[in-house]
């Protein structure tokens, strides 16, 4: 199969072009470094040709290990006889940034006798603002055709396909004048060419600066930052609530309609508890993940998240992190897995490790059902400040804040312990992308893909755990007595482990099952207490837990335990892969477990002491 390579600087619109040319839905955003993997797909107009999309890089002289991997793979691909052509994407509005890299790509391609076409992207902005861009003159100087394209409007893409068709038919001699040109000369040439053929005037930069004066101002920028973060968290809890209610109603209605139709009592119990209870336990949280991904996508696409990284750089640096850690950490509020991938944008290995340390402590959406259950059980539903704030909302904010606080505490301590390695940290240099109106299509698609990923990946694990827990709790006595079931026997065996937290075997079993995925805790507890669809309708479970006499100290201990422990098999697996060592992931798993347990024991004992003093 013939292959075409697609390469370009970060944030040049490369992945958007890839999506346009292949019809695929690679993730795109207005933030440098979104593409972290090489991906490939057949061209929509030429299905026998594969287009290979490389992560954006500023240069073929890498300064980080991630860049080195991408550059090495690009060099290897050039030597591949199946590779017939290279498409190099430049941002036509900011030509100089891209041109040096383009010249490097042309030089390397010429050394391997591969033809290059330069795709000058974002020409819709050039046209709209009446800016000058001499593509013909530039093409003449580069010795490579320059196609004016717009990934946003698809303009110019037909010409690109025609060019590719021609290139694959005719075996052009691709050797040329740049093959032996040193980097220093390429740099100077790029500068001259950009000045001569690129857009003049600072209209776009002036617009960007006006907005930056507001969003990066010490006062207005700070206020805007907190307002946007507040909006983000509101979106998780408020905007998704009606959809969550709808999902809950649908699952309950279908369950009530289906279960009575099943004649076999064991199968009916299984369907009610394991199927509707288990599946419902996580499906109800899909709207939250969708809304969160949607809002983060909008912020990314507008270009604001790069500004947020700048605002956060100084405070995060105090804890051994960098402003570039902010986006992975924020993504961790939705799910740790994409957050760990996003940490590739952190170029210093030590700071990336610190980011890995912080991510599992971010209050991810999987913790939400556990927090919701425990808060509903132990925190009264009253309000303060004339009904503006509810105690349960304050408790939710507090536990979210606690997770973030522990994350910074851990990275701060580890950073100080490894301060000798800090000399190797790379300085903070971040390109600030222009502000743009978000493109609804890709953002929506990304949110749908993220939600689908959650359902297909986490769902399998949750379903399997629910089935295993149900079987262990149902047999050998057909659900007559949970205490005498296999689950009960196992639970009593491990009970001493959880006694220092004031928890009995039922909670022990629920905690153990939650090590596969945190959200399993609620479903397991529901199964143990014999409540169908516990995660959909928590009130009966809340009543049961309250009736079981679980002390306040145990509830708070559970909250603290869940805020710190790394109970997610998928996160551990991805961490092992991304950190390049399973030891890092296992150390984090063990370390956070020990801290979580110790903190939970402390919280239980302190709370119980205070309760006793209060009642005395």
């Amino acid at each position, binding site marked *: 199969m013939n292959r075409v390579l697609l390469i370009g600087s970060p944030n040049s619109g490369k992945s958007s072009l890839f999506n346009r040319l292949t019809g695929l839905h690679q993730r795109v955003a207005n933030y440098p470094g979104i593409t972290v993997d090489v991906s490939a797909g057949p061209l929509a107009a030429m299905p026998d040709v594969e287009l290979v999309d490389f992560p954006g890089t500023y*240069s073929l*002289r890498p300064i980080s290990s991630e860049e080195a991997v991408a550059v090495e793979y690009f060099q290897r691909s050039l030597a591949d006889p199946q590779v017939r052509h290279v498409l190099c994407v430049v941002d036509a509005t900011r*030509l100089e940034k891209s041109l040096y890299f383009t010249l490097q790509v042309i030089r390397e391609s010429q050394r391997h006798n591969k033809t290059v076409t330069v795709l000058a992207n974002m020409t819709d902005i050039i046209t709209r603002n009446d800016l000058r861009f001499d593509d013909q003159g530039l093409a003449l100087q580069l010795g490579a055709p320059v196609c004016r394209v717009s990934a946003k409007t698809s303009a110019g893409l037909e010409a690109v396909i025609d060019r590719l068709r021609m290139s694959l038919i005719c075996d052009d001699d691709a050797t040329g004048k740049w093959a032996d040109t040193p980097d220093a000369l390429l*740099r*100077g040439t790029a*500068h001259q060419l950009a000045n001569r053929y690129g857009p003049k005037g600072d209209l776009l930069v002036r617009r960007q600066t006006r907005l930056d004066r507001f969003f990066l101002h*010490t006062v207005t920028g700070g206020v805007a930052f907190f307002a946007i973060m507040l909006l983000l968290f509101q979106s998780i809890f408020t905007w998704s609530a009606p959809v969550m209610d709808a999902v809950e109603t649908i699952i309950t209605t279908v369950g009530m309609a289906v279960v009575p139709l099943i004649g076999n009592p064991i199968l009916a119990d299984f369907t009610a508890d394991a199927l509707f209870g288990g599946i419902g336990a996580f499906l109800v949280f899909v709207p939250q993940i969708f809304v969160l991904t949607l809002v983060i996508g909008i912020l990314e696409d507008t270009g604001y998240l790069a500004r947020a990284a700048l605002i956060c750089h100084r405070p995060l640096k105090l804890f051994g992190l960098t402003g570039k850690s902010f986006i992975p950490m924020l993504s961790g509020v939705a799910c740790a897995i994409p957050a760990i991938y996003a940490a590739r944008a952190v170029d210093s290995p030590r700071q990336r490790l610190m980011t890995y340390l912080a991510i599992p402590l971010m209050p991810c959406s999987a913790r939400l059902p556990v927090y919701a259950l425990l808060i509903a059980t132990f925190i009264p539903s009253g309000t303060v400040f004339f009904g503006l704030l509810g105690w349960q909302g304050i408790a939710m904010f507090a536990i979210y804040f606690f997770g973030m606080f522990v994350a910074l505490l851990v990275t701060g301590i580890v950073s100080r312990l490894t301060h000798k390695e800090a000399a190797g940290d790379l300085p*903070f240099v*971040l*390109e600030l992308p222009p502000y743009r109106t978000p493109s609804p299509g890709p953002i929506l698609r990304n949110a749908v893909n993220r939600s689908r990923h959650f359902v297909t990946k986490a769902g399998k694990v949750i379903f399997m755990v629910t089935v295993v827990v149900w079987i262990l709790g149902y047999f050998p006595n057909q659900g007559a007595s949970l205490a005498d079931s296999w689950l009960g026997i196992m639970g009593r065996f491990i009970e001493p482990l959880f006694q220092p937290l004031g928890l009995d075997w039922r909670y022990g079993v629920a905690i153990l099952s939650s090590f596969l995925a945190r959200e399993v805790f609620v479903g397991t507890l529901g199964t143990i207490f014999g409540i169908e669809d516990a995660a959909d309708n928590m009130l009966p479970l809340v009543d049961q837990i309250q009736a079981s006499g679980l002390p306040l100290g145990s509830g708070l201990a559970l909250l603290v335990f869940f805020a710190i422990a790394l109970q997610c098999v998928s996160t551990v697996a991805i961490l092992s892969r991304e950190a390049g060592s399973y030891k890092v992931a296992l150390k984090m798993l063990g370390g956070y477990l020990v801290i979580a347990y110790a903190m939970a024991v402390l919280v239980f004992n302190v709370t119980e002491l205070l309760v006793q003093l209060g009642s005395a």
Partner: protein
Amino acid sequence: MKLPEHCRALWALREGDSGVVEGFGDNISEAYRIRLMEFGFHPGETVSCLLTPGVGAPHVYRVSNTVFSLDEDISAHVYLRLTDSTSGSPS
């Protein structure tokens, strides 16, 4: 290269100041010096300071038509000759 008398570090630029890159300090790694030049911060190029957000946040600079944010760790080692239009210019 030590900071020459007629030069200022990029970090010392105030909002609205512009300067022409003269060179780089010795404390900056070769890889990063080259990367900065790839971004456009090469000797002879004009750099403008667009914003200096408070509380030690990275400053915002414009080079060519691109805007970058650099923290003190790196911008303290980029030396510029201030242009005549800049207030307080020593040149």
